[in-house]
């Protein structure tokens, strides 16, 4: 309810802000005019709310670093530059695509309205001046895009990846945003006449963001096939990552960034939203803690060691799981949701291995599977009070806390719609790329590592002196091969 009203107020506040800036300029000259409390409060409110949105956006953008570090830590050192550069280009291409097409398809208004399926206005931000909103939404879009790189790591062509990342930011993700979060979306809890009683509730996007990224990654991982050596004759092999330090660094950065992701999704502080944001920060924290503890204990029980890789995945699973229900569940439920999310992640990793889908960093388990759990958990654990504060006074809330089954049904419907759309469009996209240009680097390049093949440089070089003598290529020098052997397949003996 709060949020529904808020959408209208936002535009108003921004306009008021601009107006006030003007007013302010004139009043400063004539300092002694009577004090207009309403105008001043309006200005402060706009300032406070936009600041919150911006700071949250900065934190969410910071998650780009987190993803880059977790993913690079979990792959081999010979593919480190590659995965880092994919993460960087996600943000860069995503930013331009979301500016031109993505945001308009999500929230754009032509004339005064869009339709239930997609936005259709404000292309290139034409006629749109609520910049804080764009920034916040851009940071979310970049998150959805970056998830996929992990699932397809260590064998996907860079050019193919660039095309994919454009389309997820420009099309696949924005449409889901429109459905679920725009005031006109068919699933939206903010619609005039929402589906069911409350509409589909996904406060910060377990479904809208993480399931989209996760399921697109699943499709990608299947279509590009497993890495060489991962599955050999029915045997599941292990290909360890190269740096737990980078993985841990990334996890902590993601955790911090999530404090922008979830609490920031109140979109405002005024009107009592600050208290809601604080509650969201607490449920987010508890779910992450529970996810980490669960993974640690389960891994110890299962394999006898305290497994750091699983603990990192478990914490991230807890965070993904709580993203949808963070505003509507009580703290104790956040702990349950986080713990179950962590178990879902571990089961997912096991399952994908069994069905021979190769997800080097666990992105599908963390984002698709724990995301799905998060969406459903809204229908299981949301308290009446929780939904009442964040959305609307209602008698439809969590099944396990006595609120009936309707909300769970709507959550399942929403999740199903997101999966269908994401899987279908991703399959077409990756299928098309595979047909036209190929998804995968050649075998020799994969063995040598993509860093050399795609980027011309290994990520690390610790033996300084031994490398010092390398001469720069003087013009006219004999052209040397990029790959030590690939370009001379059985070349002439010398």
């Amino acid at each position, binding site marked *: 309810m709060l949020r529904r009203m808020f959408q209208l107020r936002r535009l108003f506040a921004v306009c008021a802000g601009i107006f006030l800036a003007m007013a302010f300029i004139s009043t400063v000259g004539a300092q002694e005019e009577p004090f207009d409390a309403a105008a001043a409060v309006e200005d402060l409110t706009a300032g406070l709310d936009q600041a919150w949105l911006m700071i949250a956006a900065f934190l969410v953008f910071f998650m780009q670093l987190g993803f880059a570090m977790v993913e690079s830590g979990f792959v081999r050192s010979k593919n480190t530059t590659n995965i880092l550069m994919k993460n960087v280009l996600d943000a860069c291409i995503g930013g331009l695509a979301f500016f031109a097409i993505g945001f308009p398809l999500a929230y754009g208004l032509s004339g005064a309205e869009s339709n239930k399926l997609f936005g259709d206005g404000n292309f290139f931000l034409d006629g749109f001046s609520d910049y804080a909103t764009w920034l916040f939404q851009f940071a979310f879009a970049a998150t959805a895009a970056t998830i996929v790189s992990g699932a397809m790591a260590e064998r996907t062509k860079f050019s193919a990846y660039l095309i994919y990342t454009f389309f997820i930011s420009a099309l696949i993700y924005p449409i889901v945003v429109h459905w679920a979060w725009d005031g006109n979306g068919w699933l939206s809890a903010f619609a005039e006449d929402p589906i069911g009683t409350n509409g589909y509730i996904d406060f910060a996007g377990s479904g809208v963001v993480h399931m989209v990224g996760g399921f697109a990654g699943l499709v990608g991982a299947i279509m590009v096939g497993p890495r060489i050596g991962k599955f050999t004759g029915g045997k599941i092999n292990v290909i360890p990552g190269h740096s737990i330090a980078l993985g841990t660094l990334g996890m902590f950065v993601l955790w911090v960034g999530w404090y922008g992701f979830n609490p920031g999704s109140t979109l405002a502080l005024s009107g009592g939203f600050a208290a809601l944001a604080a509650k969201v920060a607490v449920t987010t924290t508890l779910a992450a803690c529970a996810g980490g503890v669960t993974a640690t204990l389960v891994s110890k029980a299962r394999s006898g060691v305290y497994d750091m890789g699983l603990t990192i995945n478990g914490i991230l699973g807890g965070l993904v799981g709580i993203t949808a229900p963070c505003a509507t569940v009580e703290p104790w439920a956040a702990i349950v949701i986080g713990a179950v999310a962590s178990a879902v992640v571990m089961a997912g990793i096991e399952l994908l291995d069994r069905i021979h889908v190769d997800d080097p960093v666990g992105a599908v388990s963390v984002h698709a599977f724990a995301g799905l759990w998060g969406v459903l958990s809204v229908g299981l654990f949301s308290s009446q009070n929780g939904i009442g504060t964040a959305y609307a006074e209602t008698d439809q809330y969590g099944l396990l806390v006595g609120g009936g089954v309707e909300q769970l049904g709507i959550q399942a419907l929403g999740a199903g719609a997101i999966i269908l759309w994401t899987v279908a469009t991703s399959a077409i996209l990756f299928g098309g790329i595979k047909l036209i240009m190929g998804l995968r680097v050649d075998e020799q390049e994969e063995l040598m590592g993509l860093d050399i093949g795609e980027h011309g440089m290994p990520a690390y070089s610790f033996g300084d002196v031994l490398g010092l003598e*390398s001469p*720069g290529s003087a013009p006219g020098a004999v052209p040397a091969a990029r790959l030590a052997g690939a370009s001379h397949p*059985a070349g002439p003996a*010398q």
Partner: protein
Amino acid sequence: MKKIEAVIREEQLPLVRKALEDVGYPGITISQVRGHGRQKGVTQTWRGREFTVDLLNKAKLELIVGDADAQRIAQTIAENARTGAVGDGKIWISNIETIIRVRTGETGDVAI
């Protein structure tokens, strides 16, 4: 006893090791080295400028084997390390006078 030393492409190592397991061998010691022979290096790029790296990473294998096995094991390595392109590497064999198994203190052929 003989010492076989082989410098081969890193990426051929799995194949070579599998083949060695098939023919049997007493043990192996592996290290990362860099080198070049006829191979003239690869081009890399650093912040816009290309350059030639003329020392390439290779894997060096050392195996101490009985006199009788030396030729056969060296052949196995050679065949499985071969791609046919420059850079495939070298294998060389030299004589060993004594060998000691640290665990037991045994020496001679039984210690290999």
